[in-house]
């Protein structure tokens, strides 16, 4: 049960803002509210938050702009965009800039808490993309624990959807998949999260060498062979995490 996590709710709809605050408090979070962007930035500067729920459409300064400034002040703060409106391009922008996720109004609270939990998780968020469900399950079992939170996707389309929902630290990507192959998936992911870190996992290094080469040229982080050497993987993940923490601090 997470405790003392500080959440800032930013929304010009004061009633909704207060409701969210109440709900978060009732769940044990320390919640603050702001009704416009300036106030939000002020609070971020004063207190520092683990998470900001940011309404997109606000007068004076919109949520995306506010988010960018917040990210500037406090890079380690996760920001989840909230919108009553399908302003896809604004949300896409925010995700590319590093917003953790987004939510639509009215809020799906189950999803909200799932997002918050991953956002404030101190270990590494890992997405495993592989059509081999057994491999996915064993990787999930092997990695899940204090240091890793593992999500699964069995095909490329699902993976892209998942990437929109959370800002994963590492994506383990199988190369050979039906429909969208690993490289196509990688490109789709990069379209949403330009800074996504992908590690290619393949049992067909030679067959898929063309695609692997392309992926590595497009900044895929590394390539591992199946069967996966777990020690190697863990050390790789740790190294990635370290680099990321350095970058945000």
């Amino acid at each position, binding site marked *: 049960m997470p405790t003392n996590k500080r959440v800032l709710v930013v929304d010009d*709809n004061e*009633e*909704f803002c207060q*409701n*969210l605050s*109440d*709900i978060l408090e*009732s769940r044990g979070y320390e919640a603050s509210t702001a009704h416009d962007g300036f106030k939000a930035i002020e609070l971020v500067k004063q207190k520092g938050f683990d998470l900001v729920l940011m309404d997109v*459409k606000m007068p004076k300064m919109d949520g995306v702009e506010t988010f960018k400034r917040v990210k500037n002040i406090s890079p380690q703060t996760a920001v989840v965009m909230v919108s*009553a*409106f*399908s302003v896809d391009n604004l949300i896409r922008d925010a995700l590319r800039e590093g917003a953790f996720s987004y939510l*639509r*109004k*009215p*809020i799906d*609270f189950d999803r909200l808490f799932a997002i918050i939990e991953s956002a404030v998780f101190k270990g590494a968020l890992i997405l495993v993309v592989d059509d081999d469900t057994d491999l996915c399950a064993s990787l999930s079992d092997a990695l899940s624990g204090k240091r890793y939170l593992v999500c699964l996707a069995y095909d490329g*389309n699902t993976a892209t959807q998942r990437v929109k929902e959370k800002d994963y630290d590492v994506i383990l990507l199988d190369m050979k998949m039906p*429909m969208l192959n690993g490289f196509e998936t990688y490109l789709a992911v990069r379209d949403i999260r330009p800074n996504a870190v992908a590690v290619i996992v393949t049992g067909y290094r030679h067959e898929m060498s063309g695609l692997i080469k392309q992926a590595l040229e497009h900044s895929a982080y590394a390539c591992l062979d199946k069967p996966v050497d777990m020690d190697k993987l863990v050390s790789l993940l740790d190294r990635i995490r370290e680099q990321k923490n350095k970058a945000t601090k």
Partner: protein
Amino acid sequence: MPKKTEFFKSRFKNCDAKKVEDSGTTKGIDSLEDCTGIKDRIATLTRALTEREKELNCIYSISKLTADKDISLEDVLEKTVNIIPSAWQYPEVTAARIILPEQEIKTPNFKETEWKESSDIVSQGRQIGTLEVCYLGKMPDSDEGPFLKEAREFINQIAEQLGLVIEHKKEMEALRQSQRELAIHNRIAQIFLTVPDDEMYGEVLAVILEAMQSKYGVFGYLDEDGALVVPSMTRHIWDKCRVAQKNIVFPRETWGNSTWPRAIRQKTTIYTNEPSKLVPEGHIPILRHISMPIVYREEAIGLLQVANKETDYDEHDIRSLQVISEHIATILDARLKRAIQEKQRRKAEVNLRNHQEQLAELVRQWTTQLQESEAKYRNLFNNAQVGLFRFRIADGKLLECNDLYARLIGYDSREECLASHNASEHYVAPNVRSKMLRELQENGEVRNFEAQVRQRRGSIIWVSDTARIYPREGYIEGAVSDITERKKLQEKLIASERLATMGQFSGSMAHELRNSLATISSSAYYLKSKLTGGDEKIQTHLERIKSSVDGTTSIIQSLLNLTRMKEPALAKLDLREIASGVTGSDVIPSTVRLVRNFPEQAVEINADREQLRMAFRNIVDNAVQAMEGKGTLTATVRNMPDGKAEVSFTDTGTGIPKENLEKIFEPLFSTKAKGIGFGLSIAKMVIDKHSGTIEAQSELGKGATLIIRLPGNLNK
């Protein structure tokens, strides 16, 4: 012979005869002496009488000669000159000579002596010659010298007689000559008259050659261009001539400088008795010839040539030919002129005929053109792709129309339409015709006048009239086109514009509503978490709030989907993938059996993934609801033979009544108690935007099938 008696009387009037008579009658014979004297006198008288008798005989002979018509003048003179000495006392020593111009006729013994007596030969009061009588020697002296006084008179008598004879003979000769010429002229004139063609030249030439006693000749004329044309050559010279190039037309520039061209150019007659050297090779040899131009009014109009007479040509021949030439000149000129006129007339006739033919041809062409253009315009009128009409203003009767107009109004034929159509019953709205007429009268025309028109069988169509009024003729004319389709499109456009406006409106509405709903739902969530373990009814109410919020949210989303649908962002997709995505276990309740009929190979299309997913989702949701959660849903994907891609969803629900098969795609049409029925409208809009078709088939109570056909990916 009274004339002779007369002659004698006159002859002896001056001689002693009178004395004799006197003495014989008055004195008589007195004595012997007297007798002797008488005897002498008788002797003298007898002598004288003998002389006179000789003279008489001479004169008689001469006159006898002159009376002879058949004897020529030369013969007359010849004979006369030989008779003359016999009349003299000593004929053996007497010689005679007649001297005429160019002529001298004498007795064989004639020579000039000192004893000469001469007398002038006079004709028509003019001396034309001389008659001479000479004694060849001295005669015995008579009392009166060599020539008696009587003899002198006798010479005069003979000379006078000769003058008469010559004159007579000359006249005869001239008469004969003119008769001959006349005969030639007549023959020539006859030929000119009776031979109409160029044979004439040959025939005339034949006459001339005969008259001129010549073997060869030429008779030709100068044509309008000045060329010498010699039709006579064809027949008379051709076969003898060896000249290679036989031509009867000699253009002026080819003439050269032989005699005949010179004769023509100089308009003078040239003749020579020397053989010609300038003849072409092979030409018959010309020994002597005359080249004579035929001159009329000082113009050379033709040429006469005669050649190779047996003897030399002389001035006489020239004169004869000249006479013929002059004679020919007038008639040839007339003939040539007539020929020219004839030629011109014929030419004119030909021209006239040509002109007539041209004119006739022109008329024919014009007529054809006129007919063609008339047919063309009639065709244009009848086949025009707009309806064309002419209405009488007074009562609206249709006076003229084309096929399309008739069809437009719902008639099978023009004739039917013309028979029964009337503009006054034409328009749906009552005052349209009067409004149109008013506009026509004000402006003379109407353009794109739109109105609804009732067709013959009652259907109503939209038309656009463009017409012009002809008040004097009492009708209006114009064109009409069926704009029903356009009007429908317009309505569609208006509807879609309305939708777009609604989209903007619904966008901001949705935002406000969602914010409110967010507050409601968050409040409900908070209450729900705080009121755990409390009154169960409170939980139910809180649940109800939550599900109402969800329902409202989905209605808002549908509305937004419908009104704010973007143009599809096309990408190459596999229809199987989309169809399988929307029939996943997260969508289909486990109580519904799912059957997928997908082909092995990809069914490629160009489509917007999200839109298509949304459309299919709505269709699948609809099917599941129709089955009330139990039954079989069959999804089928296939490539059509025509290159299209087809996907169909079949449920085993209640089915759709026939009358509703098309209506189910209309917004807000719903037979369900729940929901407001945007789903299939959204699906149809998506499919429309993808240029596809969607249709529903159903048997009531057995379920329904929705079939979607999309254009295949042409670039595969």
